[in-house]
Each structure stands twice: as C-alpha cells, then as structure tokens.
C-alpha cells in the first residue's frame, strides 16, 4: 500500500483521520490516550483513533498503510525496515523506561544485587517469561545472558502468551520467577505470590520502550500533520507527568472495569520509576539499549542507523 493513512477522509474538511496501531491496550500508553481524551489532537485538527494489532501486526499495518502510525518499540520497526525502501521512523518518545520487572516466589531470597548474585539466584530456576519473543521475554533473556547464564540451558523458561498467566504460574508454584509490569506486580503481591520485584529493568535508565513512529514517506508528504501530531503528543506527556489527578481520571475512563486499587498501583509505580518521557525526545542511548537486547538475544543482528530509525526534528521544533 501507499502512504495514504493520513489523507483527508473526515467529514469535517481539514480534520484528518489518523489511526495509531498499538500491540496491546496498555496503561503505559496513557499519554497517547490523554492526548486523545483531552482533545489535544482535535485542537490540532486531527481525529486520532487507536487500533489494537497483535503479533507484529502493529508494524505491518503501518507498512500496508492501514494505520498512519504505531506505538511500540523501535527495534520491531528496525526489523521491518531491513530491506524496506520506505522505512518506519520514530517521531516521538512515550515510554522511556524498560517497563519490565522480575518478581520471585516469596520463599526465595536474593542475597545481593551484583551480576554474580543475580546469576546465582536465577540459575536452575524456572521463569515465567511472558510471550515468546515479546519485549519482557527478550529482556529477561538479555539479562540472563548479561549475568552469564544460558537462557536455554541454565534456566527453564515458560512463555505463556497471556500476561496474566504469569501470576498464576508463580502463585501455583509451577514457576519460581516471573517477569511482568503493573498490574501483574500488585496482583501478585495481593495474592501473596511474591513481594516487591527483586529486579526492575527501569534501572537501565533511558530506554526507548514505546515510541510513536510513522513511515518516511508520511514524513515527506505530510510534515505539517506530523508536526501537529507531535505537538499534541507532547501536551499529553506533559499532562500525565504534571497532573496526577487528571491523569488518573483518564486512566479510569480508558480502563473502566479495572479496580481503582490496581490502577492506583500502576500509577504510583510509573511515577516512581519515571516511566514516561518528559520531553518526547529519543536519545541515541535510549535506542541503543533495545537494539542491544535484540542483538544479544540473536533476534536481530543486522545493525541499524540511529539517523534512519529516529527523526527528532518535529520534537525539536515543538520544544523550541
């Protein structure tokens, strides 16, 4: 398909229909939802909707032109870009921390936080790592490699497709360690499966976990639209980072059936670990980390160019 995702289709003249593909409907994408629900996009003349697309389809839907852009890790874009004449380019940051934590069965105690301690702790354990090939799974494998363990030999990895399954696996004693994020962490604590996480990947610092990306051809043909989108996105980020009560209201609206306690726990941890990007900027270091993860785990080894994968001109312009 062609880059038609942003063409004028709306009933109101000038209001562009924009579809953003998300791999899952996630609390971490709150700044995007905020920009939608608070009408920041509307004010820019954009009509933004999200669509959930699993199994890598959030990337393909952009390639095929069904979606205008996507939210997700830059590494999956890079994998699709390899050999593609019209690459997908990231334009603004949303989640700037690796939003994954490792929790262990209450009975297990970690001695220290060094790599050796971690290696000793995890060796021989069985780990509920989440969807095979997903970011949490890859991060877990990456960590195992980093501390000197072989993911295929030194531990037993269980890779259920459904995030909620990891809680039950540990709660039932079938696995010793689980990875996950909120709300799994607090649910597990509530159920007595584990205590606070023994390791948090946010400790890696800036990490381009979820960014918004569009095709290069879109940037070329509709620079104003991209600019407007980035402007509104930055407003969303600002709101979420500064106005906790309003952010919570939006969260409640987006996830009406979730319990307040679980939403609250998610928010608290997000603020504590500085989950969301402050300025929407994607640094070289933030991109380098996920690319290192896919490289070390052998998923993608062909290399990348920051300048082709990220275009910060719109963020820079907006922040001026």
């Amino acid at each position, binding site marked *: *398909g062609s880059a038609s995702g942003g063409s004028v289709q709306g009933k109101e003249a000038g209001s562009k229909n924009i*579809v953003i*593909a998300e791999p*899952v*409907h*996630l*609390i971490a994408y709150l700044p995007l939802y905020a920009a939608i629900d608070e009408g920041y996009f509307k004010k820019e003349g954009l009509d933004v*909707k*999200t*669509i*959930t*697309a*699993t*199994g*890598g*389809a*959030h*990337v*393909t*839907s952009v*390639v*095929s032109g*069904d*979606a205008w852009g996507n939210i997700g890790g830059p590494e999956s874009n890079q994998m699709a870009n390899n050999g593609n004449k019209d690459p997908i380019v990231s334009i603004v940051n949303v989640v700037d921390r690796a939003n994954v934590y490792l929790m262990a069965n209450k009975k297990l105690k970690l001695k220290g936080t060094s790599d050796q301690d971690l290696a000793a702790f995890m060796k021989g354990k069985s780990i509920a790592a989440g969807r095979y090939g997903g970011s949490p799974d890859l991060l877990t494998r990456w960590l195992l490699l980093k501390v000197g363990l072989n993911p295929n030999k030194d531990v037993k990895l269980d890779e259920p497709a*459904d*995030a*909620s399954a990891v*809680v*039950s696996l540990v709660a039932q004693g079938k696995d010793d360690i689980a990875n996950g994020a909120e*709300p*799994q962490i607090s*649910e597990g604590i509530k*159920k007595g499966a584990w205590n606070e996480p023994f390791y948090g990947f946010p400790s890696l610092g800036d990490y381009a976990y979820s960014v918004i990306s569009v095709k290069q051809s879109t940037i070329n043909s509709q620079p104003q639209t991209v600019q407007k989108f980035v402007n509104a996105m930055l407003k969303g980020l600002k709101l979420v980072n500064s106005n906790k009560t309003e952010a919570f209201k939006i969260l409640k609206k987006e*996830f*009406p*059936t*979730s319990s307040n306690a*679980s939403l609250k726990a998610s928010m608290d941890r997000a603020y504590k670990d500085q989950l969301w990007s402050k300025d929407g900027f994607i640094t070289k270091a933030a991109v380098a980390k996920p690319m290192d993860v896919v490289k070390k785990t052998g998923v993608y080894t062909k290399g990348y160019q920051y300048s082709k994968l990220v275009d910060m001109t719109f963020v820079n312009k907006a922040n001026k």
Partner: protein
Amino acid sequence: MDANAEKIPVERTGIDQSLEVKKNTRVKAAVIEDDRKGISMRRKVVIGQMIVGVTIIFLWEFLTRIGWLDSYYWSNPSTIVQTGWTAAIQGTLLQDMAYTSGATIIGFILGTLVGSVIGLSFWWSSLYSRITEPYMIAFNAVPKLALAPVLVIMFGIGFNSKVIMAFLMTVIVAALAAYSGVKSVDKDLEKMLFSLGAKRHHVFMKVVVPSSVPWMVSSLKINIALALAGTIVGEFISSRQGVGRMILYAGQVMDLNLVWVGVIVLSFLSIFMYLGTVWIEKWLLKNRKYQ
C-alpha cells in the same frame, strides 16, 4: 354384492361383536413415537436446560465463595454480572457485541454460500474435486493468528478483515459438507433422471442439490461456531472494537472478571447464533416432511 358370492361361507365380523375393551390409556411403544408427546417433550427440554444452567451458576458462585475455587481466576457469577453491567454502561460492550456478531453472521453467510457452491461443483468432475481437496484442507489448517503480520497486509485491519476471517473458517467446512452430500447422492436417482432425457445440469439441479441439502444443513451448527472463532481471531490480530479485542485487552490488564464477561458474552452470542441456525435448518428442511 354380486349373486355369485352367495355360496361362499362368508361370516361377517367387525364392530358389532360386543367385547368389553377399555380405551388404551397409555402403551409403551417400542419404536414408533406418538405425536402427542411433542409438546410436553419440548417443555421438558426447556426445563431441563434451565436446571442444568442454574446448577452450573449456583455451583460456581458457591464454590468460589467458600474458596474451593480461587475467585481471582474463576471470578464468580455475581461479580461477572456486575462487571458486565459496568462494561455495558460505561464501556463499549454492546457495540462490541454488535460488531462481533455482525462480522460473524456476514462471514458465516458468505462462507456457507460460497462453500456450498464449491462443494456442489465437485459433482461435475471427480478429477477436479480430488485434485482440489487436499489443498483445501491444507489451506484450512493454516494458523490464521500466526499469519497476523501477513494477514494485515492481505485483508487490512478494518471490519472486512473480520468478515474474511469468519469466511475463511467456514468456507472449507461448508465445501466439505456439500461434497459429502454430493458423494452420497443415490446413483439410481441420477440414472432415473438420465432416463428421462436429463442433461447433467438437470440432474444437478433436481437431484444433486436437493439430495445434498441435509448434508449442507448438518454443517451449519459447526460453522457458526467456526465463524465466531474466525471473527475472534480476526479481532485478536487487529481491532478497534469487538468482544475478542475486549478479552485480549482484559487479559493484558489482568482484569480476569472482564475476561470472564467476554467469555460469557461470547457463549451467549454463540447460543443465540446456534438457535438461529437451528431455525434456518428447520426452514430449509420444512419441505421435507418425509424425514
């Protein structure tokens, strides 16, 4: 009576012989069923179904309350109803249901029609049918969810792609059912029609198609379930609406109550669609009192 019959020793018998016989009140018939049973039977079935349903719900609530089942994973009926209510009022459950059932029904209808045409067309050439059959089976077994990235390119991410998924799930089953019907056609009936000077298209229209109807109908119930599964897989791959998407999202945010709401809602949708197919079955076979 004629005069010739006079000399034959004829002894009149019949109702005038007075014997005390009571009206048979109830006889245990070995085989042939009485028609009167019909209505009371239907009532019994409905009552039986309700008893089973109520028992399941009661046990579920009870076992989760006393803790035999972990209510975190199993949820329980009252919480599910409550969550469902919230989802319907504040969320988009009703639109999701309309979306899912719309895609399912359209895909089901298309799949059944096209599949039946394909299956019936196999009557025309056994070479063609036997060449095609394994490819159909292979195609049907391809895991749609796994092809997610490619499917998005082929079918897009809109409503149409859900319809196509439902279509793909049903079309082969419908084709195979119609093909089974074609294979079961009584050769003697075909022979009889040819003896009346029929061309192949006459035999096709007047014998093959009507003979195959019961076979095609027999696949409807399976197909409505498959169509629903297809739609849900379609919604898993990519969707803005639909019950499948809701379930995926609920599982992701650990809202197991909402997962159950989705599962229950889908079960109800499936029961209603099932009843719909039963009604279609009756309608299609209504001119077949002989059965």
